[in-house]
């Protein structure tokens, strides 16, 4: 029988208001005990891991990840995505259906779930395509996909455009209490644009997307959710006005949720500098004012989760003129570290930050993860909140290297990750 005892760790589990020094015992693959009285007793035969004061929290739940497999294995495979996730302290990922083929039939949902299990390092929760082949025309078999284990329904970075289609989707999905995830961007306003509308876009001469493209879609869809009683989530919100609409909807008691990604609360439009395609995102990086509004919304609970919005790209996808470059950046390895910058600058408390990365996304997806509960799977993340490290594109775990945070010096580093009690990642610094 394998026993694993984490000693000398700072336990943080926002789902149970745990935030203090303690010890945690893992038996086989499950959490067997939590000791905050710092009892000296050590169970017979336990392997001891001395955390030296590091933070031990639930394995992170990343609710927005794209992986290349199936279809774009040259960008990332499930195996390489699992390496990146483990290095980021992530043990559960919800993956976008926009691969090739799109995840629009039950067999593909089961396949992805199984492939996740085979890695031994991550749980893959597949999103089901909301429309067939993510083409935005006909709804998929939401009921059958839901039964097969699709965690929610979305077309990835393709917005559900016609209001009637969104109306039907919310209405039909409500019969299964299924969650719809919208990419909040009006396609007619976003068409051909690649940066946010601003004087910078004007100076660079790049076609732009107004912040209103996001707010118009959010306003519309809140009305449709209200009309249908459907559950709606807005993925990677990027504007202050957008989160304000969501704040108001929540105040009215509507079942509306949202997430954002590190690049939206840590970077702004200026990161594109001299046409840096690695800072090209969909939605685009916004103004500093929007970034600050997102920080406020993270702190006041308007934003329910932080997701990496990890999108693997090949160098050839990015080494082209800015307008032609693919959008998106890798984000799993840096997810926790960038989030911790908001703790270091006082925007969030440590438990708030961890909650946004663990039990809050887990509970909005309705899954058993993201908490340190006795009897639950021992998915754990051990990190040093003040450890310095520098992001080097080209040296990141996983295949895709298209990070927007290249050469950034960060404070806070994952030093070990356990999936169901098995160590799947540890740094050299960690003994």
């Amino acid at each position: 029988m394998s026993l694993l005892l984490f000693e000398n760790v700072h336990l943080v589990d926002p789902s149970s208001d745990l935030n203090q020094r303690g010890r945690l015992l893992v038996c086989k693959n499950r959490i067997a005990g939590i000791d905050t009285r710092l009892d000296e007793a050590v169970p017979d035969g336990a392997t001891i891991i001395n955390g030296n004061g590091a933070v031990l929290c639930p394995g992170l739940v990343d609710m927005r990840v794209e992986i290349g497999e199936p279809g774009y294995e040259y960008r990332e495979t499930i195996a390489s995505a699992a390496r990146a996730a483990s290095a980021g302290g992530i043990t559960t990922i919800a993956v976008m259906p926009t691969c090739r083929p799109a995840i629009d039939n039950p067999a593909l949902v089961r396949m992805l779930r199984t492939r996740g299990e085979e890695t031994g390092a991550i749980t893959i929760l597949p999103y089901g395509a909301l429309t067939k082949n993510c083409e935005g025309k006909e709804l998929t078999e939401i009921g059958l996909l839901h039964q097969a284990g699709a965690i929610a329904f979305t077309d990835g970075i393709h917005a559900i455009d016609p209001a009637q289609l969104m109306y039907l989707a919310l209405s039909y999905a409500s019969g299964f209490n299924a969650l719809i995830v919208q990419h909040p961007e009006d396609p007619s306003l976003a068409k051909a644009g690649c940066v946010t509308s601003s004087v910078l876009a004007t100076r660079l001469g790049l076609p732009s997307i107004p912040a209103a493209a996001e707010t118009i879609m959010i306003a519309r869809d809140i009305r449709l959710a209200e009309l249908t009683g459907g559950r709606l989530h807005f993925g990677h919100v990027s504007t202050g006005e957008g989160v304000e609409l969501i704040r108001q909807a929540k105040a009215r008691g509507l079942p509306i949720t949202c997430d954002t990604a590190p690049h939206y609360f840590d970077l702004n439009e200026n990161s594109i500098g001299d046409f840096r395609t690695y800072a090209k995102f969909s939605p685009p990086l916004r103004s500093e004012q929007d970034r600050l509004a997102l920080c406020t919304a993270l702190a006041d609970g308007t934003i329910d989760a932080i997701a990496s919005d990890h999108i693997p790209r090949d160098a050839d996808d990015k080494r082209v003129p800015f307008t032609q470059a693919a959008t998106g950046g890798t984000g799993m390895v840096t997810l926790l570290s960038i989030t911790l910058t908001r703790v270091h600058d006082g925007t969030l408390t440590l438990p708030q930050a961890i909650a946004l990365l663990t039990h809050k996304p887990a509970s909005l997806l309705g899954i058993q993860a993201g908490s340190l509960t006795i009897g639950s799977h021992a998915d754990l993340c051990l990190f040093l909140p003040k450890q310095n490290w520098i992001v080097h594109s080209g040296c990141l775990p996983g295949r895709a290297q298209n990070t927007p945070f290249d050469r950034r010096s960060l404070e806070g580093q994952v030093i070990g990750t356990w999936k169901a009690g098995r160590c799947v990642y540890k740094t050299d610094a960690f003994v």
Partner: protein
Amino acid sequence: MTHEPCRNATRHLLGLEGISSDKITSLLDLAEYYAQMDCRTTSSRDVLRGRTLINLFFEDSTRTRTSFEIAGKRLGADVINMSVPQSSINKGETLLDTAATLNAMHTDLLVVRHSQSGVPTLLAKKVDASVINAGDGLHEHPTQALLDGLTIRHYLGTLAGLTVAICGDIAHSRVARSNIYLLTTMGSHVRLIAPPTLLPNTFRQMGVDIYHHMDEGVKDVDVIMMLRLQRERMSTGLVPSAREYFRFFGLDHRRLNLARKNALVMHPGPMNRGIEIESSVADSDQSVIQKQVEMGVAVRMAVLDDLTRGKDIP
């Protein structure tokens, strides 16, 4: 503010909304009389002798039109079938011109089916004949609900206190609407079962319970009434696929067993076997689908008789 249907209940049969339970009971009693009558030995041909009945069908129909035709003939009326899906309309004649033409022919009974809701009501204002709604758009199909009521009463003795589940494309069903009016008026508990795209929330305000999970909806009911799912619902995206529909809203033996023992299985026809109903369920001992058709003639005889009673032949 309540919606008051505008209709002269004694002269026309435009719908069942607002029709009293006494009136429905008397129609069902009369229909039962005709159902029990053996027309091979007993003649009822004097009832409508000298009356003219026109079946004015703007939409395709086999069973309803035939049923009205047989009912009219058994009562001795002169029955004329007019199918006008294309003919006059294509020639540019408006609906009201058609009505005026028919009026000039001194028709006594005008049986109307149309794809648009409200057409029988409009015609009733313009003609002297008694208008019988044989199905208008998504609005009502009163004789279908009456025959359903008669069938249930035939097997279970009463309508009061029963729980009846109506399952399928409620939003687009005139049969569902007429049955909701009839059953709630007669004291049955009505459950509607469908995916939300086929069952808007507004139905809640019609004195019924709404279910989006069929297993819950059919639990312990006395009657399961299935509705036809048109292929068009899939092409317009209201239902993603036939297999998904059958999985979640099809009536199979497992679901039938959740209902009361010997619950009745009904369907207004035509059926889509394997989409809304498993073939063997449609053919099972609990299925009363053929009985519904049989009751249809009796119900229509009763309606024709009732509307012409005490009226002189012009």
